[in-house]
């Protein structure tokens, strides 16, 4: 057992994080959404959005918290299904974008020279095309649907992280601990992956929280444009439905989807800021 004086940096950061009440609440919100999404995926204990109750456009009540839709389906159940879609989009796009961003950024920053020239050219080129044009083009070409949304958001989400990691690795490779590793005979692979990368992990964590909320917001826009999820409810398609419903005074589908999205994106926003403060104490107070 280590004594309390030798608490690791991570434990230290974690204790800073949970001391912040808002950050703790946000973390709980994220965990709750993740659990709901997981249970909906496994089909445990979550209401079925498919079952039609036969009564269309029931206003919210004790029985149907968010009312029913055109086909008499429970809007709350649709919101839950939308949660599953949104969290899966956040998770899968992060799993695609983050490794790409880390590897590309680390290679450019570590090797410099022509490797950096080529990668920097690629990053500049990629970020010259407005994100929305890339997203639209990729989903249009890959065919509408959730799979295209994952790919499009995953393939466009790495640029910011790659830039950050590149700059940070550049700074680190000149530090004494990397020189020491060289002196001990460490090769490039060892220096980069064993010594430098663990020191930039905090950027990855902060960026994941950003990637999640960007992905969730983008999924809503793509689904709204008809490029996203097909044949099952997502927050985006629910908001799209609401376009026709509002004039009839049916506001609950819009409200339900917007509220569900608001809470999780807000939680990620607060959590992201708190993570930055906790993991990067130099920035504290700025």
């Amino acid at each position, binding site marked *: 057992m280590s004594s309390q004086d030798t608490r690791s940096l991570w434990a230290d950061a974690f204790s800073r994080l949970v001391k912040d009440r808002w950050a703790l609440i946000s973390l709980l919100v994220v965990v709750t959404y993740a659990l709901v999404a997981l249970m909906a995926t496994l089909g445990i204990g979550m209401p079925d959005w498919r079952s039609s109750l036969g009564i269309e456009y029931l206003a919210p009540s004790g029985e149907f918290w968010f009312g029913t839709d055109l086909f008499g389906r429970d809007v709350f159940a649709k919101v839950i299904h939308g949660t599953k879609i949104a969290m899966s989009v956040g998770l899968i796009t992060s799993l695609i974008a983050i490794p790409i961003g880390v590897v590309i950024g680390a290679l450019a920053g570590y090797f410099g020279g022509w490797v950096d020239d080529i990668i920097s*050219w*690629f990053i*500049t*080129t*990629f970020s*010259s*095309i*407005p994100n*929305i*044009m*890339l997203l*639209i*083009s*990729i989903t*249009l*070409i*890959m065919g509408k649907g959730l799979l295209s949304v994952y790919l499009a958001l995953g393939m466009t989400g790495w640029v910011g992280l790659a830039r950050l990691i590149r700059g940070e690795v550049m700074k680190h490779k000149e530090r004494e601990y990397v020189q020491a590793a060289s002196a001990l005979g460490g090769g490039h692979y060892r220096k980069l992956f064993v010594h430098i990368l663990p020191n930039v992990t905090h950027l990855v964590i902060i960026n994941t929280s950003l990637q999640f*909320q960007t992905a969730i*917001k983008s999924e*809503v*826009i793509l689904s*709204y*444009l*008809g*490029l996203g999820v097909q044949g099952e409810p997502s*927050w*985006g398609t629910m*908001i*799209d439905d*609401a*376009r026709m419903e*509002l*004039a009839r005074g049916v506001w609950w589908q*819009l409200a339900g*989807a*917007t509220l569900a*999205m*608001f*809470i999780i*994106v*807000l939680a990620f*926003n*607060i959590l992201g*800021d708190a993570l930055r403060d906790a993991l990067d104490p130099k920035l504290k107070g*700025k």
Partner: protein
Amino acid sequence: MTNYIIRRLLYLIPVVLGVGLIIFILFNVVAGDPAPLLLGKHATPQQVHELREQLGLNKPLYMQYFDVVRSSFTFDFGRSWATRQEIFEMIKIGAWPSLTLTIPAFFLSTVISILLALVVAFYRGKGIDLFIRFLCIAGMSISSVAYILFFQYFFAYKLGWFEISGYEPQFPDFFSYVALPGIIWIVLSLGPDVRFFRTVILDEIYQDYVRTARAKGLGEIKVLLKHVLRNAMIPIITYVVIQIPFLILGALLLESFFSIPGLGGITLNALNSSDFPVIKAMAVLSSIAYILFSLLTDILYTVADPRVKLK
């Protein structure tokens, strides 16, 4: 300085080649044959062949890539598959409605955000700072689509203060059509903008020169406006100028909701009819605008801060 600009302009070439490559790979390689899409399932092989000939899809791939790159320099994007119009003409016509919406909205949102950020920085750490910061984060957490739907329903449909949709290109007439989408644009921009400007201003506020300014007896407002704001100009300029290309692209969602026949609307129509050449043209044009404006930002640095020398 001239040397620097020339070098940056030369760097345009590999970037435009790269943008062309990405667009070429997406639309000419990955997308596959558009013939069934355009002619339907029952086209004869003869028709398919003629169409491919006409669209230049029978050429070898490197020639097709060359066509994409050439269009980035000549702006000759060919004709739309859906409307048969010259794409560059469509873009010229669509630019005006887009700009009447985005320029005033962008100008106002930037000025309001900087002012709000100064207020927030003035009251840093106090209740009003916390409140506005929370409002920013909360505002950013609502879907832009939800804002548009709600504002259009409430202010145009329910209260009847604004036109629900449509557009008039004549000078004072268009204001009544772009007012509400413009307001939504401003509301959508306030959150991220105020947050960014606040951070930038607070980065400066703890510097030594600010302490000196206070020590010699300047009031806080004068310190903020004359010293802090001037020094915060560089990040503010970058942030503002780099958004300008996106004004040209128009406001995709706003234009479609309010039936404004601008570039955003053109892009969305092209999207719905799988009109590849139009989407390619919009992607190429917006990328070139982005590259040019990032060069402009660098040049503006030297204006904002004479210490910056471009080499």
